[in-house]
């Protein structure tokens, strides 16, 4: 049943967005990876996940916003049973990066990086969007530090840049119903946080890797 639904999701993704996948210097195997991509649509991880070979889909867990995906009905079912997603609080992330304001109590929440590391475990891969929020599809926003912290905490995991093109036109911000439009998913060469590499230069390098895929 789950398998059939997963196949249905992949089929639907292809009908809406086409099945164009490009791969530059990357092989698909069961090594643990963190795919990091530009974020322009709620469907981003669905398309990226669908672009992976079937055997890897079961091992690859998208990281998704709890407030959008953890809602009663289809979304919660898909996230829990088909994508096996790792849900994180978007609110918590902003609170972490902004100093607490006087009078506003900071809710005691788990560090999202902890949640991601747990989600990664010993055999899974993750799909994350380091911009944090959806961009406008034209510019690539600045990256948050999460990717760097993950790379430092798990140096054995490859970081794979992914550029998703045109999907913002399938489901733009603020729309509910997708329209068909050919999108493409480009996988770049795996990278790692080098020994001694600082946060900002690494994030810049990771961001440029995605921009490079856009030009290509």
């Amino acid at each position: 049943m789950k398998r059939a639904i997963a196949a249905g999701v992949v089929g639907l993704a292809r009908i809406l967005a086409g099945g164009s996948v490009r791969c530059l210097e990357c092989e698909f195997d069961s090594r643990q990876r963190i795919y990091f991509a530009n974020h322009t649509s709620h469907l981003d991880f669905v398309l990226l996940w669908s672009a992976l070979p079937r055997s890897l889909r079961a091992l690859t867990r998208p990281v998704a916003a709890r407030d959008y995906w953890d809602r009663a009905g289809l979304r919660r079912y898909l996230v829990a049973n088909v994508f096996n997603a790792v849900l994180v609080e978007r609110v918590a992330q902003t609170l972490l990066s902004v100093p607490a304001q006087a009078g506003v109590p900071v809710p005691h929440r788990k560090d999202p990086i902890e949640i991601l590391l747990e989600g990664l475990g010993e055999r899974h891969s993750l799909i994350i969007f380091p911009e944090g929020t959806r961009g406008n599809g034209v510019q690539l926003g600045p990256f948050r530090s999460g990717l760097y912290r993950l790379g430092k905490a798990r140096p054995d995991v490859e970081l794979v840049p992914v550029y998703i093109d045109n999907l913002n036109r399938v489901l733009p911000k603020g729309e509910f119903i997708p329209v068909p439009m050919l999108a493409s998913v480009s996988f770049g060469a795996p990278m790692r946080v080098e020994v001694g590499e600082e946060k900002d230069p690494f994030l810049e390098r990771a961001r440029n890797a995605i921009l490079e895929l856009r030009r290509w």
Partner: protein
Amino acid sequence: MVNFLHDRQTLWLFGGILGVLVVATVVGQLLKLRRSNAVIDNLNARIRAWWVMSAVFALSLLTGGIGSVILFALLSFFALREFITLTPTRPADHGALFWVFFVITPLQYWLVAIQWYGLFAVLIPVYAFLFIPSRIAVSGDPERFLERSAKIQWGLMVCVYCVSHAPALLMLRIPSFEGKNARLLLFLVVVVQMSDVLQYVWGKVLGRHKIAPVISPSKTWEGFLGGVATATLLGAALWWATPFSRAQAAAMAFIITIMGFLGGLTMSAIKRDSGVKDYGSMIEGHGGVLDRIDSLCFAGPIFFHLTRYFFT
């Protein structure tokens, strides 16, 4: 509906297609043995895709009318998806695009299926034509307004309205040809696609003088003249499967090939303007769906109306 398995003429047409495919495959493999290069690899990829396309088309005809309607509806959907992808729409067009893909396109084919000719003929040129700019205007983004509305409408006309005339052949009532309209559709598709193939073959073998090198580097006068002549002869040779006489079948085939050529050229001009080689990559060796049916888009409506005017 499978009754036309007993229709000898249709079986002959299928047999003919099968024979051509077998010969093409053998020739392709022989060429590959002699020497291997990009052109021959592409030729063999095209032939493989032809097997698949022919099988899908034959199966759709075997289901009776409804299979063909669904097949062409899907072709329209995929072609339109390719076209709109190349069209610089803006977020404010989202609502209009939703209607175009999920309401107007299915509705057009539903009209073909229920054979409501009157609305079929005006749905897109009249109703959609007025609806699309209105819907975009309601969204309130005036930037490049006319360009956006015009391009969406144009895509709808070419990919949906024009293509839907092919299965609409099944709704024509031709005296003493009742129940045999599938052959008319087969005639159109065979002539228009063989015309493409023959123009390609003549062009590869004899092509010297380019017709419009900037728009389509592969179209030559030799390919065009050779292709039109041979495809017209082919159409005339298939007269027994149609309601036409020999001369009429030749004239119809001639018009189909000319329209097909113009369709290919026009759709190439749009590709060059958008800076792409192909509309997509869905069909191996051929490019996208729209690359394969561009000639059908132009030939279909004209063949439909000529047949409707002179033979019903």
